């Protein structure tokens, strides 16, 4: 298992039945992934597993022993600093509790498609609930990030 680019010790067999969310938070001290519902509905525990945005409350440790996992703490190192900056600059953040999951959904999208459309952003974020902001600034922030990451591309 790699987390945020670094190898982590293979989890003990007794821990294979833990939710990945709990393993990240309680064993690895990565509290960026948040619990909001425990059933994959709110998206605040979303992390990136082998390139896909997935709710870590529905994943068991034993399922991801060989996976590349990325959490909000590793986004900057993965080249998503511009995405993080854009969320702050666009004032797309209020209480912020949903934001780690939102950012991971956006980062996985940007990795798949460097210049996503609004429809793609909407689809990517349809599993992330935010109760403070009403979502609209997420579109602007993702477009800003796309432009910043590819200054000569179509999104610039």
């Amino acid at each position: 298992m790699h987390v945020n680019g670094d190898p982590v010790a293979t989890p003990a067999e007794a821990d294979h039945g833990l939710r990945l969310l709990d393993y990240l938070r309680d064993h690895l001290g990565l509290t960026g992934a948040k619990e909001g519902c425990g059933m994959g509905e709110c998206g605040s525990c979303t992390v990136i597993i082998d390139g896909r945005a997935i709710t870590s409350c529905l994943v068991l440790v034993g399922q991801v022993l060989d996976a590349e996992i990325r959490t909000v703490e590793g986004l900057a190192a993965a080249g998503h600093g511009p995405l993080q900056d854009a969320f702050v600059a666009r004032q797309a953040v209020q209480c912020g509790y949903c934001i780690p999951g939102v950012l991971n959904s956006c980062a996985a999208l940007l990795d798949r498609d460097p210049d996503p459309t609004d429809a793609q952003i909407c689809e990517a974020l349809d599993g992330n609930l935010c109760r403070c902001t009403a979502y609209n600034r997420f579109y602007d922030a993702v477009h800003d990030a796309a432009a910043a990451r590819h200054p000569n591309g179509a999104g610039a």
Partner: protein
Amino acid sequence: MTPGAHAVGTSPAPWVGRSRPSLEGNDIVTGAITYVTDRREEGMLHGYVLRSTVPHARIDGIDVSAALALPGVVTVVTAADVPVNALGPRDVDGPALADTVVRQVGEAIALIAATDARTAEAAAGLIGLDLTALPVVDGPAAAAAPDAPQLHESGNVSGAIAFSSGDVEAALADAHLVLRRSVHTPAQEHVAIETPGGVARWDADATSVTIWCGSQNPGLHQRKVARALDIPQESVRMIANPVGGAFGSRNDDPMPVFLALLARRAGAPVHVHMTREDVMAAGAKRHPFWTSIDIGFAADGRILGSAVRAVADTGPIITSGPNVMKTSAEMSTGPYGFDVASFDGTVYYTNNANAGAFRGYGVPQVAFAIENAITEAAHELGLDPAEVRLRNVLDGGDRHSLYRHRTTTSLNVRATLRTAVEHPLWAQRRQWQAGAVGPWRRGTGIAVAMKGVGMGSGTGDTARARLHIDDRGHVIIWAGPNHTGQSIQTTYGQVAADALGLPIETIDVRVGDTGEVPESGPTAASRSTYAGGAAVRAACDELVERCRGLGLPLATDAAGVGTKLVELGEAEVNAEFRLPDTDDIGIVPPEQLATFAPHRVYGTCTQVVRVEVNTLTGEVRVPELLCVLDCGTPINPAATIGQAEGGILQGLGMAIMEDHRVSEGIPRTTSLENYLVPTIADTPRMHTLFIEGSEDSGPFGAKGMSEVVVVPTPPAIAAAIRDAVGVLPQELPVTPERMLALIEEAPCM
């Protein structure tokens, strides 16, 4: 601009009116921020709350022996172990833990602390409960029945408020049109994405407790904890942020009391984090209301009089029930000026979900009744719905229709309406409607709203701020109300920078910690920017005045001035802002001023909504929405717009999807699988505009706005549905099933 870039003799650019990103934004996007439920303490135990699964039962016995025997369990707390088993001074505030009776599903019965969370939960399952079922009071009608079981010694009426400014029926006798209508608005769950929880640490030597737990009213929670543990208030420290959202839910929440009880009994730090299912059952909801209105109009659309009656269900304990109804009473005449009005509202205790504070606080419920009536009247009278509203709205300084008290001159509903009707969303509504395709019909609706800022006249509503300047010229300001997601300290910093004329980077604002922040009341009633900001302003003004009196050049040599003030023992300032009462209380009896608490200051809002209705499936889509705000000076405009958009989306949820359903006392919406809140795909494109205005009593002319934005959304959506398919929903939410039924029952299409 960096602090050092400041030339002597120049002032920093004004910060008020400039959008400023949240101060904790960087920590949020990197995951570095530690929310109260992220907190971990050395030797920390994990807590769990055993809750009732039945709505009403007598407790004949609680056996905790098997739970205590489970390896890893450190302590179990029941009612008998709580020094003062009460969440407030009155019986109706309810116990901390159920003692002789349980009165709702989700009521806390026992607290468990164990070495890990799984063991704590497993122990809860081993607690033996000997319960005898009691008849369930399943709603206000059952509560009011002559032979109803009485849920409190004082009976089943939690509160009642009535007022009349004249003979409404006499006024209606001369009306060209009289409408008598009833509406229903649902219980709504806040769904703050962080569920309640946190950590408490008991200090045995000092017999004191520190609690990290979200709160909209840290001082109130401090007092609640002190009461329950029977320790002095000074022995309780509430650190109430960072927290992942509130919207009213952290006003009545007993979680700080549970954490403190566990930490004290266990003698170790204890962490609790509620499940979403527990919040759905136990968290206080928006009060479900049954509201009826009799309202009369002249042929030209002028309102001649209205009588509003409302019934609300507050569940088994009082929480905010009567105060919510007090707000409903004041806002039952909407933002309209007319001669005769009455209100009669009653709040009942039931065995349904407890209801409490929720953004809007009783206003969305009654506004739905009055706005729907205006919408219908416009159609009946053949008048433009915006024009009918323009003919009736209050202007600044006018007398309020019910209490006849004087409003502030900053009130400007008219400008919000005028701005809205000129916007293309309204002006081009017929062209847009004509573009409807297939089963999707299009319509546009408009609604207006007004809500008081602060607690109202006669309540003594006060916010405080403490300021200190050090020998580097750096300023720390401890202020309240607390931050529960709106980053109020970012706004307070802008107020302080301009009031002091100092670089904003040299000002540090701290909120939400009762160990440092003076008592400033709740993050509620749209008062944080207005009252908290005014207290910050007052502290800064006092420092500036002090420097002027001493001949010290604060703006140009803050370090030197700070050094001098520290030497003089003059480096600290305490200030307060007391909410001004209305200049003229009208016909409210002076001795009952706080009972009715009319406001001097109001925020107002007009919204225009586009809706598409699928006539085959009943689906309602909201593609675009305009919000025009009368909030005085927006101190941090992008943050203000963010508050508006978030509030609107909660109003949209209430209008078309959110419904916390309880039947026979059993919650039927139990998780986010069956309680739906708006996702990004449900969210309209939104435009928020400010009208020019200034409230003299607010900091730099600001007044509150975070609640009023919720209010017009449901009736504007209902009006848009009326425009699209010819039927006006009177019951929320307008689910596809309800929409289809309305279309099918409509007399002609």
